[in-house]
């Protein structure tokens, strides 16, 4: 089939005008393979090396060094650096009171002899006796019960969200949305366990942000699917086609939204931690970046094909091949307008006459916008089947 004149000639042009015709459902195996890889890699890595939990989760060692004219936060940092202790995983604070001020240093657990060495170095740098430098183990500040409460809240949240999506949309969409969300969070967690980034409370917040973002994005996409489902209700369009049409329609929106969400995070990553040297931001921004890209990707490549698969086994039987190529494009372009698409011709489409029905549908798919906008004469009512 040749392309009509109003369709842009180049790929980006078609994308810009919302005239794409990608058969997302036909390529659903890509999403499946990627998802399986993500799950396998993440769980293998979690099992083999686990997560690199930071100071706030695991506790560590703490020094209180008397502060003075010549010894402050910067000098303490230098001592740690000389002893090859990571600054990113440590906390160095100035603790001031009327009587005496301390530089409070917390680091992750180091071997005893190294700890002794650091104590000596601190004493030397601060110009005090070794006895004046207090050294102790410090516990986690993120206790078990914070985790427990957070997990409990999360489980309740997911149940409520599943119920909400089931009411607002339908239960299969709830399953698909939660699966996509799990996929995204696993991807982000996977990055942390594979590369052994340090997990801090901020990381947990990043994971929660990803979770929320993923659900948000999936719902925006599903809302279009549901709208199109209603639009094609009278033509009995196969669900895979409805999903394909919807994905192509929201494609530009998804790309724009991801660009607008990801630009600030990229800026955080490169400008904030790269140029301005706020190292604390680096891994946090990286987790967000991975998760947000995944959030947009999974709505289209994981959630929607999964939804179409869940739906295709039930209800109406597809009686013909999926729309592809120019047929799909025509449907994508045509359906982007509010209103209901009616099947063409007179309404005597009895079940047996499959050939004719298909022809009708193709016609309905091709010029629906004009049909909606020009208000064709209402056909004479016939007896209801």
């Amino acid at each position: 089939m040749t392309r009509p004149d109003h369709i842009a000639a180049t790929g980006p042009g078609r994308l810009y005008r919302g005239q794409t015709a990608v058969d997302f459902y036909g390529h659903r195996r890509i999403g499946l393979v990627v998802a399986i890889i993500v799950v396998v890699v993440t769980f293998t890595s979690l099992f083999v090396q686990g997560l690199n939990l930071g100071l706030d989760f695991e506790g560590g060692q703490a020094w209180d060094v008397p502060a003075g004219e010549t010894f402050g936060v910067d000098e303490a940092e230098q001592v740690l650096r000389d002893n090859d202790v990571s600054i990113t995983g440590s906390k160095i604070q100035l603790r001031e009171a009327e009587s005496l001020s301390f530089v409070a240093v917390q680091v992750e657990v180091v071997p005893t002899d190294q700890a002794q060495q650091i104590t000596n170095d601190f004493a030397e740098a601060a110009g005090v006796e070794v006895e004046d430098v207090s050294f102790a183990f410090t516990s986690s500040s993120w206790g078990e019960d914070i985790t427990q409460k957070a997990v409990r809240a999360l489980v309740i949240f997911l149940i409520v969200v599943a119920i909400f999506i089931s009411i607002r949309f339908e239960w299969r969409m709830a399953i698909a949305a939660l699966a996509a969300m799990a996929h995204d969070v696993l991807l982000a967690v996977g990055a942390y366990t594979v590369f052994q980034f340090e997990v801090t409370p901020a990381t947990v917040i990043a994971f929660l942000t990803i979770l929320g973002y993923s659900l948000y994005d999936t719902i925006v996409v599903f809302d279009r699917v549901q709208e199109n489902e209603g639009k094609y209700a009278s033509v009995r369009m196969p669900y895979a086609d409805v999903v394909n049409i919807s994905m192509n329609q929201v494609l530009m929106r998804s790309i724009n939204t991801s660009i607008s969400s990801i630009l600030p995070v990229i800026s955080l990553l490169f400008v904030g931690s790269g140029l301005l040297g706020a190292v604390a931001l680096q891994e946090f921004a990286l987790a967000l970046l991975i998760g947000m890209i995944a959030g947009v990707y999974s709505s289209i490549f994981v959630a929607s094909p999964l939804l179409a698969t869940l739906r295709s086994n039930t209800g109406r039987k597809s009686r013909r091949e999926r729309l592809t190529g120019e047929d799909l494009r025509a449907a994508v372009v045509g359906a982007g307008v509010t209103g209901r698409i009616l099947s063409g011709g007179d309404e005597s489409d009895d079940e047996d006459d499959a050939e004719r029905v298909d022809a009708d549908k193709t016609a309905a798919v091709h010029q629906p916008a004009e049909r909606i906008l020009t208000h064709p004469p209402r056909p004479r009512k016939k007896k209801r089947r």
Partner: protein
Amino acid sequence: MKRRLWLSLLATIITVIAIFAANLATGTTPLLGLDLQGGASVILEPAEDASGEDLTVVRDLIRDELERSGIAEPNVRVQGDTIVVELPGVKDQQAALEAVDVSGIVELRPVVNFSECSGDGAAATPLDGVSVDPAPVDPAPVDPAPVDTLGVPTPESGEVPVPDDTVGRRSLRTPPDTIPVPDVPLLPDELGIPLTPGAELLPTRDGQVLCVGPAQGTGEVFERQSATVDNSLGFQVNVELRSGEGEATWNALATQCFNGTPTCPRTIPGSNGQLAIVLDGVIQSAPSVNQPVFDGAVSITGNFTQSEAEDLANILNRGAFPVEMVAQEAQTISPAAGQESLRASVIAGLIGVALVLIFLLAYYRWIALVILSGLTIWALTVFSVAAFVSSATNYSLSLAGVTGIIVAVGVTVDSYVVFFERMKDEIRNGRTLKNAAPRSFKMTWRTIWSADLVSVIGAAILFSLSVGSVRGFALFLGITTLCDLFVCYFFTRPAVILLARSKFMAGRKAFGLEVAS
């Protein structure tokens, strides 16, 4: 229609700017977290030797207590033999010391006598002790005596003639009528019984004094954080018993008091022995025990006012401190992440948002002006709400919170993108801009509220059920999402619809598309 749109648009702009200006004028800004601004730090030491396990329990209790009293996201940890408490946003060292003054131990002591303790030895306060007591007590039933009772909750408290408080098993239906039966024959027994050694006089909260025996249990018998106020029939306090040891200790005590044994005699004839709940040497409540055995839960009923009941519940909730903690000096602490992190994240965030705006202007041309002004309104609203919330509740903005807000810009921009992409579709299919705008908004609004509602639900659930930084995250997620919904409906909608109708847009490339007029 048109007038209403103008009204909504102008009212939103004026309100938001006025509130923001008021915030600036009063100097209300969002509180910054420990990692950004530092705060105050207090070191607590145990009064006696404590195991590491005890200190871990105390750490969790202190954190719960601080969060309950409105100090959000404190950092509490065990360091060596001490507990280090770091409070965000607290600059005053004295305030910090007061905030962490949560160290008292709750003791359970049987009431031995009224108003006097005759010596610490085995001095028998025989007939006198009890026979005298009813006399001063007789007027007591008239006034709301500090005598509480432990009994089955609501139905009985009505039946009990004395305006006392009762402690009872919640599930049990047995009325207290059964209790008076063993009462009378036992009365003579206790008369000849000597007072327990270790008894002392302690004041109640109303200034009366009671003689109480030595502590036979601590607040650890109660399940942590389980005490609640129930106001279905007068105010009562329900609390759960910690299964196992806690329940056993409590029941051993309750049985003594119920039977009026020498250690916990019947101080008022016709009533059962009383069990005093003591905090820092003050009797908080001394309910008489209406059951020998409690199954998992206890309810304390009586003539409580709401605040009295809440106080008692709080005391029971904090009661599980295994050791007494003494606050050492308070110190101010510097931010952990450092000022440059905040500066870097804010600068980076602003650069990012600027890039987003440039991208959107290039993509949507003129109509992107709406996004620019909408985002400004959104940012002002978020700032005002965050400032208000943190001044009212002590919730502070940590580095994670700042970056979370930067991420929220993306979600907010999405509202516009969904809207404009929809409009583009409609226009391309031959609708006029004027016609497309309201129709597109209708469909877009449906999408936006569905998606945002999920975030709001998430924020509400995480906020109410979790603690610490997860809670802070939920708060700011909720604020940014609600502001998005607000701005979308009251600003973006009228702005776009009015712009679409105006002569200004006629013939311009609104979306880089030729618009039919």
